């Protein structure tokens, strides 16, 4: 699956990256990796605003957010 590495980036870069890839991949699913809870919540809330199903799972570097295809 397409993967976006937003680890270690400060606000609002993870969301902006998510926004860009959503445009790029259109309806495809993709994964966003972030380091902190703020970025996780921001990306999740952004996906929700775009009516995309997304779920966060913890991994060793932070959070992996899986955005489903539609």
């Amino acid at each position, binding site marked *: 699956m*397409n*993967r*976006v*590495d*937003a*680890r*270690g*980036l*400060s*606000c*609002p*870069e993870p*969301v*902006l*990256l998510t*926004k*860009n*890839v959503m445009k*790029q991949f259109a309806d495809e699913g993709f994964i966003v990796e972030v*380091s*902190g*809870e*703020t970025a996780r*919540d921001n990306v*999740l*809330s*952004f996906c*929700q*605003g775009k009516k995309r199903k997304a779920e966060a799972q913890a991994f060793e*570097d*932070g959070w992996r957010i899986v955005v489903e295809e539609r």
Partner: protein
Amino acid sequence: MSKAKKQGLIWLLITGGVIGIGAVLLAAFGNPANMGICVACFLRDTAGALGLDSADKMQYIRPEIIGFVLGPFIISLATKEFRPSGGSSPMLRFFISFFVMIGALVFLGCPLRMVLRLAAGDANALVGLAGFAGGIGLGSVFLHKGFSLGRATAQPKISGVVMPAFAVALLVFLLIQPSFIRFSVEGPGANRAPLFLALGVAFVIGALAQRSRMCMAGGIRDAFLIRNFNLLLGYGAVFAVALIANLVMGKFTLGFEGQPIAHTDFIWNFLGMALVGYGSVLVGGCPLRQVVLAGSGNTDAGISVLGMIVGAATAHNFGIAASADGVPANGKIAVGVGFIVLTVIAFACSKVFAGKKVAA
């Protein structure tokens, strides 16, 4: 609306409300007028107390700063969000934050005090708000163009403890008042709410701000960039609650002239706050957010706080800071220099994303 989102909004409303009422309360109990809470002013007073500058009316280790660091520290430990990180252009963050402080001391307040001034009827703050939004817009243009200060990486646990330890050291100095620590006997630095009241209120606000990610710059930025208005809600709550509290206590006076610790110079109120907005967007958060992040183990934000402290001391050493009489010539020059420095940095750091990081 999902449960998580609703919860986030409730946290923001609570944080904003507590800041609003807390600020009016602290001002009523002795803090300077319309300055129940001001992150920039309080870092400045702390710099004065440490002898970094010699503005003798602005020296006091503000317990609020200690609370804004320790509240988030304890909460982030409790919620396991304390994961020290850093290394995202610390040198650039230091100097951007330095100029954020310069802008704040030309306007006379951080974004939070700007809202508190507005809620007390100080119309000059409205000019500041316009400038703040303008500066955020400018910074957002660069973010849109891929501005980034680079990635932070995990740091040793101990480096995240430095700022909280610094806050504890400040608390010790505040309690035992050794001779090398300077406290004002008159002026704003002598206007103080009771120590433990200020510390307690700030601790609670810091903890709430950590939970809610409250940020004064983030609200306008997100509205510009991703049409998200959540963070603005926290803003609105501070304003509404402080406004009501001021009206009830008879502390609301609408107008430009004669407002406490403020000047009426339109241009420099606008430009000072514009510099604050611009810099805040580049480092990823307003002064309050930087202090809160610094307490939660973000060492880049810790560097920002140090940049602001040095900026505050420099503002007084070099005759940059404004007063009720207006903005000195050096203040105007410094704001101009700030815009140039921030713009050079913004251009230099603006081609990082551009889809390059997207690994398929």
